[in-house]
């Protein structure tokens, strides 16, 4: 087990003859404690996978320093970094049995045969793969393949687990189930883990702390509660939470150049307040989403409100009044998007 430190990590891709430079990671700093479960989340193309692959050693580090357990790993091969990785499409060796898939890394590391057998059997027991050890990957279902990929990571007994969107090929039900399994696994083994995903639900549920990335920049690094309650920028405010936070530019009573943010569940329907024309309704079961247009001084904003299903549904086209809870208002600088 080990802590991970990222110091001003930069990644550039060069065009032919190093004439064009494409900077995809703009100096990321992060201190990850021993045994922590960190989720890196962001939209596609934000550099989250690249960052993970740099930790794994599959991508070169252009600038900066990555250390795992006080050891700078910039120039080490992936196999020397004491890490294990679970890939999105599992990357199982198709011609090897489940047992051989899990044992391959150990065989190369020249671990004695009986030790290999003990470790694989133990991992198979944890992941309930016992009956499938002799099968080939193609004879397994998606969820089982996923577990084999995790088993391959476990048997290596690494310092760090790296997960590259491991749940995105599973159906919704299996994904929720596997999420719980990963949580349990982390509780039992306590190995430092980095988990990349584009899915904010996965990020919120799995993370002890999460890194929100956008355009190669780390926007915020904190616990899910912090990220949700005090988003560092308008990007984080809209990326985390569904439906996203309402952002209102130039609302009455604010200074110019300030954007006000309010989450849909922190708006209450009241006798007076902001006057909204109801545009659309969405019934989600436990709650109802009300989409309304708010025409104020300078603008025309779409505002979303999350109401309990027990409240009566407003008529489409009618006007309702809402009031934000004052302690739940967020203020952002309109130009930079940063929290004020």
């Amino acid at each position: 087990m080990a802590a991970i430190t990222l110091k001003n990590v930069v990644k550039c891709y060069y065009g032919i003859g190093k004439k064009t430079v494409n900077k995809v990671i703009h100096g990321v700093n992060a201190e990850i404690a021993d045994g922590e479960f960190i989720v890196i989340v962001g939209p596609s193309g934000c550099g989250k996978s690249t960052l993970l692959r740099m930790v794994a050693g599959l991508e070169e580090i252009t600038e900066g320093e990555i250390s795992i357990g006080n050891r700078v790993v910039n120039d080490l091969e992936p196999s020397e970094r004491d890490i294990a990785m679970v890939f999105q499409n599992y990357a199982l060796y198709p011609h090897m049995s489940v047992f051989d898939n899990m044992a391959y890394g150990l065989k190369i590391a020249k671990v004695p045969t009986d030790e290999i057998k003990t470790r694989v059997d133990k991992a198979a027991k944890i992941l309930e793969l016992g009956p499938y050890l002799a099968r080939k990957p193609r004879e397994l279902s998606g969820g089982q393949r996923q577990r084999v990929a995790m088993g391959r990571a476990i048997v290596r007994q690494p310092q760090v687990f790296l997960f590259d969107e491991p749940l995105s090929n599973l159906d919704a039900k299996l994904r929720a189930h596997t999420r719980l399994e990963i949580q349990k696994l982390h509780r039992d083994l306590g190995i430092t883990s980095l988990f990349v995903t584009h899915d904010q639900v996965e990020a919120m549920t799995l993370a002890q702390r999460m890194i929100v990335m956008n355009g190669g920049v780390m926007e915020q690094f904190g616990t899910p509660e912090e990220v949700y309650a005090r988003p560092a920028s308008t990007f984080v405010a809209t990326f985390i939470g569904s439906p996203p936070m309402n952002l209102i530019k130039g609302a009455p009573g604010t200074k110019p150049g300030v954007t006000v943010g309010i989450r849909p569940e922190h708006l209450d329907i009241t006798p007076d307040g902001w006057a909204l024309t109801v545009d659309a309704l969405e019934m989600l079961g436990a709650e109802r989403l009300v989409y309304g247009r708010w025409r104020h001084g300078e603008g025309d904003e779409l505002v979303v409100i999350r109401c309990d299903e027990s409240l009566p549904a407003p008529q489409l086209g009618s006007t309702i009044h809402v009031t934000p809870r004052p302690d739940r208002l967020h203020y952002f600088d309109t130009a930079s998007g940063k929290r004020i």
Partner: protein
Amino acid sequence: MVERRPLLTALTHTVLILGVVVIAFPLYLTFVASTHTTPDLMQSPMPLLPGSHFLQNYLDAWNGTGAGAGSKAPVARMMMVSLITALIIALGKIAISLLSAFAIVYFRFPFRNFVFWAIFITLMLPVEVRIGPTYKVVADFGMLDTYAGLTVPLIASATATFLFRQFFLTVPEELVEAARIDGAGPMRFFKDVLLPLSMTSIAALFVIQFIYGWNQYLWPLLVTTNESMYPVVIGIKRMISGGDSEMQWNVVMATAMMAMIPPATIVILMQKWFVKGLVDTEK
């Protein structure tokens, strides 16, 4: 098309049967000719039913004891030469093209694309075009009448390199990365992952290349002058001496029949693998 119309069925069957007859009749004729005595064969019309000298003719051919005027090299020896040559060519081609495709796909080195295209362009140059210079080189190395001379110039293969390159490109990138994380070096990855995955393509290629090696005619004709180094295809040619002398067509035909057996056997034995290798995309 899954249409079931009696007329269409009859038509397709007629075409197929005609095709089979056209191809099979010469083979049948060869077999019939190999079972008669020479004088019987010389009659007109030639007999169309098998004769009684089957064993005699085949033994003559096998041991080189016929009484003809042409070469009398024993077929047993020639079959051995053919077998060794075909095996060296097939296995050599597979080994070399696997390794060169591996280098082209998985290693970054200067002029990688140039190298690939250089190999690819040789596809357009058949052996016959460069046969003069190749002969000179082989002769200067003293490789005439040797297995090396028979096989080395035929081993380099752009087709097979290209085939393996295309196959390697379809192997998912993550597999390479998983192997790197597992600590497998390039050659270990090649041996443990790529080779087993390529097995069906290798089998298909082996069949094609074995037959290619077995059926070589022009090149062995040039580089072998010694009877003991004749492949069987050349042996047949040398048995036909020309001129006015009496030709032992029955023995020639027996030799031809025997020359057909090994490639046919390879195809039949490896048929399953061969088809799998051409159509399978399991990865």
